[in-house]
């Protein structure tokens, strides 16, 4: 869930290095076996995580960045997952990769740190029992707004049908699931409902809402709040925190109709030739210390109980949504893989984005 463009320019290099890594391991055989390739969004883990992992375990790891879930999904589907060991993806994509048989079953004996997870994080709807995915970060999607310029919004309709003084001062996420999610919640429908009626109603609502937007923005929305260009933005809670960090008048709220529970997870590529090393990496990321450090660096909640309990309390004071309890989080519906519903869903989103 990051910017579509900034990352794509690094990809040729990532591919080259990934290719070189494959070539090396093919030639050098066992000598290079302990080298794994991780794919993650740019900036979605602390920059020295891989270095520390290598220091601790002796396993070489390198990062390949993807800009979006769709991008890494496309590569993994096209290449059967070859060249990757561990992937960071949002849960519907983990689910889809699992349906396609592209991710490996997780051997819990090799991931003892999974015991650090909250109980709720072990029974997530997309993968109860964490059979093929381990949650890395989770949170909600809501409204991030300037409390000095407007009263607290209470409904998704405050975004979709903004009052006159907010017209042209709101932004929405354009990533399909969250764009449609705002409408589904406003309509009181399931986030995973792809029936014709719901899609048509969501389309009407979102095409009308488009007229009042400042812009669609999936990457810099919090900066628009800071600069005052926007007064309220559709935001992931962690990204709203980046805005709160720059201006304490920025606040995050979940409308009365609720939110989605999004989960970004780690999966191991079934094509990985270093599954033990991949498991070691997953285990390392689930460590309490690493979890603390992840949460305080990227300002996302992690499903890591040991880590969240060890967080500096001042962090939660500054960023109140970091303190949301797992019980509160998991009462929201998760985004699921839409399966065949993906076709009408994608067509509806295309029509919304194409509308004048």
């Amino acid at each position: 869930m990051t910017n579509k463009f900034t990352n794509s320019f690094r990809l040729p290099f990532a591919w080259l290095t990934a290719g070189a890594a494959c070539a090396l391991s093919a030639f050098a055989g066992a000598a290079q076996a302990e080298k794994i390739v991780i794919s993650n969004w740019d900036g979605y883990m602390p920059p020295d995580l891989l270095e520390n992992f290598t220091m601790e375990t002796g396993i070489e790891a390198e990062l390949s960045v993807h800009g979006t879930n769709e991008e890494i999904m496309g590569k993994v589907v096209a290449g059967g997952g070859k060249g990757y060991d561990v992937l960071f993806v949002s849960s519907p994509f983990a689910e889809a990769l699992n349906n396609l048989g592209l991710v490996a079953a997780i051997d819990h004996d090799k991931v003892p740190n999974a015991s650090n997870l909250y109980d709720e994080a072990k029974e997530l709807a997309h993968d109860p029992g964490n059979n093929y995915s381990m949650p890395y970060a989770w949170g909600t999607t809501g409204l991030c707004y300037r409390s000095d310029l407007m009263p607290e919004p209470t409904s998704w309709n405050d975004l979709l049908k903004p009052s006159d003084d907010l017209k042209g001062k709101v932004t929405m996420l354009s990533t399909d699931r969250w764009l449609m999610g705002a409408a589904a919640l406003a309509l009181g429908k399931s986030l995973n409902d792809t029936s014709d009626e719901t899609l048509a109603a969501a389309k009407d609502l979102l095409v009308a809402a488009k007229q009042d937007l400042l812009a669609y923005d999936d990457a810099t929305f919090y900066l628009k709040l800071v600069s005052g260009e926007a007064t309220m933005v559709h935001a992931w809670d962690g990204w709203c925190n980046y805005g709160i960090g720059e201006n304490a008048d920025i606040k995050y709220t979940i409308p009365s109709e609720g939110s989605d529970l999004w989960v970004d997870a780690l999966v191991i590529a079934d094509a990985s030739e270093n599954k033990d090393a991949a498991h070691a990496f997953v285990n390392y990321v689930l460590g309490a210390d690493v979890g603390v450090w992840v949460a305080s660096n990227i300002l996302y909640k992690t499903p890591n109980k040991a880590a969240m309990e060890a967080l500096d309390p001042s962090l939660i004071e500054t960023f109140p949504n970091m303190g949301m309890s797992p019980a509160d989080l998991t009462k929201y519906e998760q985004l699921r893989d839409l399966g065949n519903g993906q076709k009408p869903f994608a067509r509806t989103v295309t029509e919304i984005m194409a509308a004048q």
Partner: protein
Amino acid sequence: MTNRLKSVILLGPGLGWLALLMVVPCGLIFTYAFFERGIYGGIDHVFTFENFVRATDPLYLGIFLRSAKIAFLTTIIAILIAYPAAYAITLAPRRWQTGLLILVILPFWSNYLIRTYAWIVMLNREGLINNTLQGAGLIDEPLSLLYNNFAVIVGLVYNYTPFVVLAIYSSLNRINVETIEASEDLGAPAWTTFHRVILPQTVPGIAAGGVFVFVLSIGNFITPDLLGGGRLQMVGNLIYDQFLSARDWPFGATLSMFLIAIMMGLLFAQAVLANRAAGQRGQD
């Protein structure tokens, strides 16, 4: 070595490059357009014309039309800016010309994205332009300069005008000065000399630069996304989304084919124009 063998060897790398990076991908796109989408991207090998029917939906034709309109306006504005600039460079002393041309292409030394982001800083409601105008007391409320067609056209004109300057400069440079002197000697006023003697001889340059800008603009997706705020899609955004978000490769391929056809048509027209101009010069 025979001449034929020589030309095969010399043409080899170029033709191979074209075949591998142009013909094959276009062939793939052409094939994809006739299949159904897979659920997770890719294609299902089921033959269909559905993508073509869908692409002619007024919704998508409207996007083609809007993109063409924006690209056309961009082209006109770029030519209007570039012509005087190229003219001035041609008139400048010889030793300055290289330096001036380097200044024209200097922006290309930085990344397209960075150059486009710079316009966000200039145009936004708290940006350089609005702050300056407000500071000078010329406006009370900030102007909405960003996230609309205006901003998209500004971004495209800014990025592509240098190409037109170069194209027009090269055709201005090729004009035989004697034709201008002849016109003046025969008593033509400056304006008549320009529009009867100079302008017609630079039509190929204008066409080359113009077609180049139009083709690059109509397929652009970064500028409408960043400066247009993603609200007003151009055909480039529509295609981008089919491959990277909707995972509908066949529909994306069909739209690409329409776009490629438009571009090829224009490039062909430009080539005909250039050929005709070359032919005329040959007869002179």
